[in-house]
């Protein structure tokens, strides 16, 4: 009687062959990724710059050009070069004549769905916030996203008081969103009814950022009055 026939066992692929294949695939893929990165880098950077400029020009309507600065514990200076620990980035906007039109800075705070990132405009003349725009938000459509469309809410930011205390060490009054209809002071924000959490996030974002930035910025405002040529 014949022994039962076993199906032939497939031969194992040698390890060198596996390594060669993976090496080849990785090389081809690496080349494709590097090519795409190089090819799109300039356009992506220009897009980011344009988006930032658009938001800054929106919160400071008189602005025609802008420069990026940072406030460090040692004073303010143009951004670029080495990153300094604890530095706060801000944007200085100039009008057509090269005269200071306002300062813009980013703030962020936890909203209802996710972190609400905003960019606010600051006027050194009145020491007040003059407007804000959204950088990123995932707030509920039709509810939380009213913060950029609700006229009554936006009116809070025509001249929101962010004056510093006598020692110039912090804001004289904390910026805070209060329940709809209870605003009594110029540093308070009248929240949108039904979107209190998002309104509070805007208040907190402005307060946290201004508390960090303004005490460093205000004593050195002369440096920013004219656009550097």
């Amino acid at each position, binding site marked *: 009687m014949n022994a039962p026939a076993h199906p032939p066992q497939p031969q194992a*692929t040698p390890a060198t*062959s*596996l390594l060669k*294949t*993976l090496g*080849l*695939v*990785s090389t*081809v*893929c690496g080349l*494709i*990724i590097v090519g*795409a*990165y190089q*090819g*799109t880098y300039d*356009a*992506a950077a220009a*897009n*980011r710059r344009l*988006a930032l400029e658009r938001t800054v020009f929106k919160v400071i309507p008189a602005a025609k050009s802008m420069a990026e600065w940072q406030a460090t514990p040692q004073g303010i200076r143009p951004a670029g070069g080495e990153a300094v620990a604890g530095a706060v980035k801000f944007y200085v906007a100039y009008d057509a004549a090269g005269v200071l039109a306002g300062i813009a800075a980013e703030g962020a705070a936890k909203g209802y769905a996710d972190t609400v990132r905003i960019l606010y405009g600051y006027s050194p003349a009145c020491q007040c916030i003059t407007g804000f725009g959204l950088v*990123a938000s995932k707030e*509920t*459509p*039709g*509810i939380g996203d009213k913060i950029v469309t609700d006229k009554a809410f936006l009116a809070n930011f025509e001249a929101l008081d962010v004056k510093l205390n006598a020692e110039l060490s912090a804001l004289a009054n904390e910026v805070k969103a209060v329940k709809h209809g209870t605003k009594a002071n110029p540093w308070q924000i009248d929240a949108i009814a039904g979107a209190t959490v998002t309104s509070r996030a805007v208040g907190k974002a402005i307060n946290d950022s201004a508390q960090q930035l303004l005490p460093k910025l205000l004593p050195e405002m002369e440096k920013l009055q004219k656009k550097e040529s």
Partner: protein
Amino acid sequence: MSDLAQARTFDEFMEGIWRQNPVFVMVLGMCPTLAVTVSAVNALSMGLATMFVLVCSCGLVSLMRRIVPKEVRIATYIVIIATFVTVVDYVIQAVSLAVYDALGAFIQLIVVNCIILGRAEAHASKHPPVTAMVNALGMSIGFVIGLFALGAVREVLGAGTLFGFSLFGANFQPWVVMVLPPGGFIVLGAWLLLFSALKRRKEARLAAQGGGHGA
């Protein structure tokens, strides 16, 4: 190309658009389907991004099908798919930051879209590049249609606009739930219901015709 080959290529192309539509028939890729279809633009952008990744990765997988040992095939496919996802990520950043921000993490998550790995494993690894890419193109057009069908309905009902243009004027009260997560399930359910009803109607008609012939 012979008539038979042409018919076969056309068949490959149509498979994903209708018979095996990834959204309405195979119910695959539900994560981006439900998450990003809050507007027609987002839906189309995600669909086109997926189309690029699907067609390119199927082409490359097919080109390499004879040299990739089966032991490392899944690792190879994932590397190839991840490569084209990275490319599409860079390209979207260069084309439109607004779309990039709107799609968020779902661009990177294309890498785990089961339609793509499924096509690579089930089709591209067994067919020549042209056939694989034609099949992938048909499948991705089917995916774009599926996403657009959801995105357009959700935007019209949930925001009263289509591609950002107002359709019903200022007095329209948007049906906000449609652009929230539950809206994705509601609209997808409605589309699946419609497809199922059409399928049953067709089957009933065919049965009736078959019965008529038999009588």
